[in-house]
Every structure is written in C-alpha cells, then in structure tokens.
C-alpha cells in the first residue's frame, strides 16, 4: 500500500486497456507505453494485464504505507528511494515509511510504478484503466491526487522482499533498437515509426507521399493520450474525398483538411471521418509514446510481414524478461 504524497497531476492508473466494448464506442485506452507496462509486470511476476500507475508529470512522490516489492519502468527519470538512486526498469523492495520519488526526466515521457500483485481498483468494462474523458475506471475515473492511497492485489505467486540492490532489465530502446531510416539513417534523436498504408493512402498526391517518408515531423503541444498532432509539410490529396465516419484504432495516422497529420494513441476515439494515410505498427507505438512533445519523428513504410515480425520480436523480449525474472526471483528465494 502506498500513498501519493506529491503530484502535480495527470498521472493515472492504467493497464492494457479494454477492447471488448470498442463496438459500443468505448476507447481501448490503457498504458501509452504498453511495453513498459508489460515489462514491470514481468519483473514482479504480476499478471500480464495487471495495472500500474502511469506517471505523466514529474516530480511525483509516494509514501510507502506497508512494505512492498515495486518496479519502475518506462521513461528514464531520476528514481530515488529515501534519496538512494534506483536504476531505470528496476524491481526493488521498499519498506514502510520510505519515500519513493520520480523526478528529472532524462529521456522518455511516461514512467510506470508497479506494485507486486498489481494495483487494486475495480475493473470497469473488463479493465482497470482510467478513462479520463468519460470519468470511469482507475481510481474513481480521475487522475491521481495528493493523499490518494493505492492498494495492491494479493500476489498469485507470493515472493519475499527483493534482496538489496534489486534487479531489472535493459531498456527496450537497447533491446529493440530502431531500424535505420532511408533518409535519416540511424539517429536516436529522431524516433523512427514504421507504418502500413491505410485505406486512403493512394488518394494523397505524390509530393505528400514523398514528404511523409522524408520529412522530420515534430510532435506539437496539441497532443494528449488521445492523439499526437504533428507539425511538418502539409499533406494534400489529389482530389477532395467525401467520407463517412468509420472505425479507427490507435496507430492510425489521420490527415484533417489542414494537412497536419494526427496519430491516434491509447485514448483514441473509436471512429473518425478524416482520410487515413497510414497506421503506425503496434511494435513501434511505445517509441511514439516515449517521444517527448517538441521532439521529432520520421515515418518509414513497411510490410505486413515485417510488422508481424517486429511484433513477435517485441513479445519475445517481454517473454524473456518474464522468464529470466522468475528464474532470478526463484534463485533469491
């Protein structure tokens, strides 16, 4: 059990989201960086779908109300337990009375604080994720506030306190390096996103299709958990296209009439009427989530086969973290 002792807002409880009610217009939601969420659960031996605290604004501080094993994953930020530095993507034991703080961001956007067993809030429509727009899920459907007490569920496979020093995993950015980009090459300062052409891809003019894959795009402040609006060359269509609203999913790159694309993210609406030029592949959505507002991204066209291969590679990484974490925890028992 932990208490939020200091927050400036926007942090919420998230899991892998809810996709059973998409047909009823309920967003999938869930963690912006689903890979980081799964990694924390893997380190602690939690269920794959267990919920964690998604930290959006820093600093945030927690008072430990009862001893608990914790993992912090996602953004590389300054993590301290009673002033002692903790590594990124790390599992450790915290004693009652200690203070856990997450502050200065080195890289990334979203950090995840996991408790052994997963966070105990009621499931709503099959998920513990907070959906702020509709004010349900998570803790009373709202962002976390000072004084909130967060409880954990009983562990399926109870584990004693993690030994001093803790343990962790290498960051996904090291384990799954982004491929080289045809125009940008290998440049870690620019996030490379692979996309599959979407239904209206071929309705865009040649200059726009070229610009999509050659230009660096900047993530604008008009971005949120629902979507990232980009700044760059304006994308135009060869002819005006009349479209009815249709289903969209996280990853879809919509192009409104102004020509500035929007990438749908976790809290994406379920339908939209703008033309879709592409869809960012699932295996790269965590890279987008961890790219900060003001930073640049670039697009590279890929194939369905490559998208599946990247997805499998990502899952293989998580499976390895889970299996080796279990072996190490068993070794410590």
């Amino acid at each position, binding site marked *: 059990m932990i208490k939020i002792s200091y927050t400036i807002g926007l942090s919420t409880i998230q899991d892998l989201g809810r996709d059973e009610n998409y047909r009823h217009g309920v967003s999938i939601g869930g963690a912006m960086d689903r890979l980081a969420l799964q990694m924390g659960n893997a380190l602690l031996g939690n269920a794959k779908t267990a919920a964690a605290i998604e930290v959006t604004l820093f600093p945030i501080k927690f008072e430990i109300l009862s001893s608990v094993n914790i993992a912090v994953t996602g953004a590389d930020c300054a993590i301290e337990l009673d002033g002692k530095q903790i*590594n*990124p993507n790390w599992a450790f034991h915290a004693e009652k009375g200690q203070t856990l703080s997450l502050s200065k961001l080195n890289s990334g956007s979203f950090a995840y604080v996991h408790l052994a067993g997963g966070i105990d809030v009621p499931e709503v429509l099959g998920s513990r994720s907070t959906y702020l727009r509709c004010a349900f899920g998570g803790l009373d459907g709202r962002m976390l506030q000072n004084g909130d007490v967060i409880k954990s569920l009983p562990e399926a496979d109870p584990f004693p306190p993690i030994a*001093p020093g*803790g343990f962790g995993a*290498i*960051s996904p950015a*090291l384990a799954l390096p982004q491929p080289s980009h045809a125009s940008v090459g290998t440049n870690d300062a620019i996030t490379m996103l692979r996309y599959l052409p979407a239904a209206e891809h071929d309705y865009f003019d040649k200059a726009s299709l070229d610009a999509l894959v050659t230009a660096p795009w900047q993530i604008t402040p008009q971005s949120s958990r629902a979507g990232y609006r980009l700044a760059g060359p304006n994308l135009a269509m060869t002819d005006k296209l009349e479209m009815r609203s249709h289903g969209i999913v996280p990853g879809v790159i919509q192009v409104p009439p102004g020509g500035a694309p929007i990438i749908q993210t976790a809290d994406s609406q379920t339908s939209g009427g703008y033309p879709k030029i592409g869809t960012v592949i699932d295996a790269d959505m965590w890279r987008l989530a961890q790219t900060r507002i003001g930073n640049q991204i670039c697009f590279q066209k890929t194939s369905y086969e490559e998208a599946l291969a990247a997805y499998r590679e990502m899952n293989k990484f998580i499976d*390895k973290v889970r299996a*080796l974490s279990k072996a190490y925890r068993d*070794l410590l028992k």
Partner: protein
Amino acid sequence: MTKTVSAKAVSEDDVQKIIALAKDAHVQELSLHEGSMHVRVVLTREAEASRNAPQGFAEVNNLMEVVAPLAAQFLPHHPCHPNSGVRVGQSVRRGDLIGFLLSGPLLTPLVSPCNGVISQLLAEPNMRVGYGTALVSIAKKI
C-alpha cells in the same frame, strides 16, 4: 557416492547443490551418465571459493572480492548511464551498487558487501564471466 539425476532435472541449482555435496564429502570429481548424456563435475579451487561465498563474495588476503553469482556479462555501469560506475580508489558503503551482470535482457546487481575502497576491477567491461569469477576487489574499511 552414487547419485542418479534425470537429465531433464539438471539445473544450475542442481549443479551448485552437487558442488556443495561433493565438497562436504571431500569428493574432487563426479561423473554423471544417463543415455547419451555425460556430465563431469571437477571441483576446482574457484568452485570451492564460490561455494564458500554464497552471497557472491569471498575474503582473500584482507581484500573482499565480489564474485559472479551466475554466469553472465560483466558491466561496470548501467547500460543507460555509461558515465556512471565505480572507479578504483572510490569509497563505497555496504549495499552500494558496484556493477551489473547482464544475462539476456536481465540485469542483476553487484552489491558491495562492506564499507571500503575499490581496490581493483578484476574483470574487463563487457567480459563474459563464469559462476564464481572474481570481478571487483574492495579494501575493507576497518
């Protein structure tokens, strides 16, 4: 001493238990056969040292040597923070992180067992090290 071990059941834990049993029984060498499998365990001085250091360290000539508790790649600093990591001459306190072992994607810590000063880095950065390999020596502060 005769012990039958199923090939499927042999894990690193089992090997460590076998080493412990062998040492307690003053046995220097064990051969295990099953079908086409043949495992030969020779109790070396390093294995004895690690057996005596279940916490991952051993005291040698008034220096505390931190040894690898598992086979892995030795990293003197966290991969995300290449400018961190301990240096020779640096003071450390009991419980401080003094390096990492990388095994697949898993990072496990090397923790200082005592207050003292880093005397020597005994393994090269990124080197593959075996179970019981001495990695860092610390001059104990008395």
